[in-house]
């Protein structure tokens, strides 16, 4: 019995790879397993190899895996491209019709199933893939009824006949496997049976926005962000919200800013190219102190880059991309679950700090289906921050309302259109406390300081650590953000099993950066390895800056003392070929740097 298996289906785009994978993932999730899906697809609509790998386990999994136990191959290309992942004893389930050839030497087994034939026999050539699900059910020891159930739910609206055809294909596949496979080593151990949710990160963001009270969403379609708009288009009519598909990203962000300034909770979602186009308006939201939530689903850059490929390379653009001095708040969830709560948090921060707040997603996180434990609505609160009450506004009657009052926290109560006596000018031009344009040097400095102060005082729980507890020394500290959490986590466990003391610090807030927390961990480590999906080490740059500041402050405070600088013992593992990390890539890099450090 296995605690963890990997299953993959591959074929041409448009051959039902997605829907078959989704079906399998949903069944496993409903059976109480933890599921993590990973699609490989290209920027085209039909044709081209595409595959969908699903990891299923009895414990949480948040990474695609190095290996593969069952490969469902709709065509020979799928075998050629993917067989190297197969473990010894793994199965290739292939349609007899394709005359599959399995390269030697993997120790995997080719199971030819007359999928086309069966599909034709049950009277619907489109149910070919369903036959493979029946086979899968047998191979993993999963109840075939669970699949049947879901099929009837999914295809119910297509009529009884279609449902019956699907069910027949499923059962025939199961029967075929039962007959031709004597024993299967890949039976899954029982799950914890707890109810679970299965969703992609983008749906989690949508869900978070919904419960956070967001009711205006303006966006422009772009991979891999479009699902957020799509999902909200389905849900908002029920709660009176509005989704506007705008003419471009500049309209999208400014519309959200307009809605935010009028007092709604508003958001936009985009990917790199859209982020670049939004830069000017982001500065406006900062300068005029208008709450807005911006979700950036990172993909392969720069420029149009690799639209359907994973990357984490928009960090610096999000933090420093608009002209002028304009510090950011940017959250970086690492799972769909966190994406849900972080989206809620983003709206609260935007209202409390009256500024744009980023939720930095990445393609793997945005699009990979994953199991989410039950979400706790009671943890969701809506905090609107400082809004002026009528009394405050009445009292400002003579001189006008000081919307941009210089306060100690930098935050000033805001009035909302419709509130009597709250009128003011919200502007991206430098302004005085009333919002009126001012070029006075003293006022300018005060206003800049006010805006900088807001963010510099913000303290968030910006780091999640797993590994040996202090004061134990670490052989290596792995640092990452976003969806690398899964592969880093798997790698850390593997390393620990091999006797290496390994910690994992996952940066949950990119700005303001959790420098003190990270410095403390880095000091405990002989080596720090920053693991990220980009080519120039953008997270590493932030660490150099902000951990550097902490270290330098310590050095300055204790000039005599020898403070050793953990940044000197920091290395980067960068991957920017469009694929997420495999755990073993991290493991071998760690082994390499450790042995190198020992040798050196």
């Amino acid at each position: 019995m296995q605690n963890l298996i990997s299953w993959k289906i591959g074929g041409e785009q448009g051959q039902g790879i997605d829907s078959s994978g989704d079906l399998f993932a949903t069944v496993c999730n409903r059976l109480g397993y933890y599921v993590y899906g990973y699609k490989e697809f290209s920027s085209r609509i039909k044709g081209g190899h595409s595959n969908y790998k699903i990891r299923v386990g009895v414990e949480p999994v948040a990474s695609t895996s190095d290996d593969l136990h069952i490969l469902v191959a709709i065509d020979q290309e799928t075998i050629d491209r993917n067989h190297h992942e197969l473990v010894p004893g793994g199965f290739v389930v292939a349609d007899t019709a394709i005359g599959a050839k399995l390269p030697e030497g993997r120790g995997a087994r080719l199971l030819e199933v007359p999928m086309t034939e069966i599909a034709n026999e049950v009277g619907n050539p489109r149910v070919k893939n369903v036959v493979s699900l029946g086979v899968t059910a047998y191979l993993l020891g999963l109840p075939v009824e669970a699949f049947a159930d879901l099929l009837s739910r999914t295809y119910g609206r297509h009529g009884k006949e279609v449902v019956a055809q699907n069910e027949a294909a499923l059962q025939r596949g199961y029967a075929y496997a039962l007959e031709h496979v004597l024993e299967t080593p890949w039976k899954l151990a029982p799950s914890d049976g707890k109810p679970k949710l299965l969703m992609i990160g983008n749906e989690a963001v949508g869900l978070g926005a919904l419960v956070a009270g967001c009711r205006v969403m303006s966006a422009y379609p772009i991979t891999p962000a479009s699902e957020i708009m799509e999902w909200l288009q389905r849900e908002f009519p029920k709660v009176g919200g509005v989704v506007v598909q705008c003419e471009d990203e500049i309209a999208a962000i400014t519309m959200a800013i307009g809605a935010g300034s009028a007092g709604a909770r508003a958001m936009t979602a985009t990917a790199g190219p859209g982020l670049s186009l939004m830069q000017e308006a982001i500065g406006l939201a900062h300068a005029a102190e208008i709450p807005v939530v911006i979700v950036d689903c990172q993909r392969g850059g720069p420029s149009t880059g690799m639209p359907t490929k994973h990357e984490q390379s928009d960090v610096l653009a999000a933090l420093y991309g608009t002209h002028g001095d304009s510090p950011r708040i940017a959250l970086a969830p690492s799972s769909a679950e966190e994406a849900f709560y972080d989206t809620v948090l983003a709206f609260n921060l935007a209202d409390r700090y009256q500024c744009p707040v980023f939720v930095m997603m990445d393609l793997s996180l945005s699009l990979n289906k994953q199991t989410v434990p039950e979400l706790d609505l009671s943890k969701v609160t809506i905090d609107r921050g400082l809004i002026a009450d009528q009394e405050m506004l009445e009292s400002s009657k003579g001189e006008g309302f000081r919307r941009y009052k210089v306060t100690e926290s930098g935050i000033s109560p805001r009035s909302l259109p419709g509130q009597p006596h709250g009128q003011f000018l919200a502007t991206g031009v430098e302004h005085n406390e009333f919002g009126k344009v001012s070029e006075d040097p003293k006022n300018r400095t005060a206003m800049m300081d006010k805006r900088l102060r807001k963010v510099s005082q913000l303290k968030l729980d910006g780091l999640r650590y797993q590994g040996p507890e202090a004061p134990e020394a670490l052989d290596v500290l792995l640092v990452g953000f976003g969806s690398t959490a899964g592969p880093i986590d798997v790698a850390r466990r593997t390393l620990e099993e091999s006797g290496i003391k390994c910690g994992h610090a996952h940066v949950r807030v990119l700005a303001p950066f959790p420098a003190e927390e990270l410095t403390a961990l880095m000091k405990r480590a002989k080596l720090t390895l920053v693991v990220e999906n980009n080519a120039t080490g953008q997270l590493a740059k932030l660490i150099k800056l902000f951990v550097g500041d902490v270290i330098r402050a310590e050095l300055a405070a204790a000039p005599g003392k020898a403070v050793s600088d953990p940044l000197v013992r920091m290395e980067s593992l960068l991957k920017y070929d469009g694929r997420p990390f495999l755990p073993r890539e991290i493991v071998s890099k760690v082994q390499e740097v450790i042995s190198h450090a020992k040798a050196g």
Partner: protein
Amino acid sequence: MLKLADYKTDEKSWWCPGCGDFGVLAALQRALFNLGKPPHEVALIAGIGCSGKIGNYINCYNMHVTHGRALPTATGVKLANRSLTVIAAGGDGDGYAIGMGHFLHALRRNPDITYIVMDNHVYGLTKGQISPTSDLGFSTKASPQKNIERPVKPLQLALAAGATFVAQGFSSDVKQLTRLIEEGIKHKGFAFINAISPCVTFNRVNTYDFYRQSLVNIEELPGYDPRDRSWAIRTVIEHNELVTGLIFQSDEPSYEAQIPGYREEPITEANWEISPEQFEEVLAQFR
């Protein structure tokens, strides 16, 4: 009791003496007053330019956004709080150069917003470059080469883009302009008003005198029917856009009237909380 003075601010004007924008400001203030819209229920979203400074001089909720983006921002304001009277304003550069895309999309989207373009055929604030409405051959110190780009025709474009309300006023005829703005605000949909507003500093061609001599009041054309789109198109072309008055109006549903599930109660006033039952219903799709 509302007074006209309630719409004024004590901000010293940054406009040049004689600037056409003064007339537009006066007309807008008067229109709001005539319609009895209290300042706190009015949101004015202005672009960047001399024109964009209008928000400094009118007492209401003001936004002064990035160059060219008044319309999407105003749409966002309206969607968030549909009970507000939402006005967008800006210059010809703001609206027809950098903002052109948003202009045409607002027209077809038809949100209930009134959009006033203060058209002086020049870039005032940046010291006198040609603008998209500048005449052929127009040049200035800052744009020493004669303009070779045929001017944008805002009225024809608006009509072609599906406008439901098109008017043109002249800043020195504050009375007519006031009425047009009033009509625009009352119009349930996107009301577009091109307000000819001479720049006395940088435009020596499209002057008050020029307009006084060349503008024709479309409403005085015998039998003119602003409900007839093809008549409007014909007339505007015939007069090379030099008309004032209400040019076209039609009754198509506004954007807000068509949004699925959108409510009468403004979003800003709704209860945003999701009940556990609602939440469970939504979660069902993920099970």
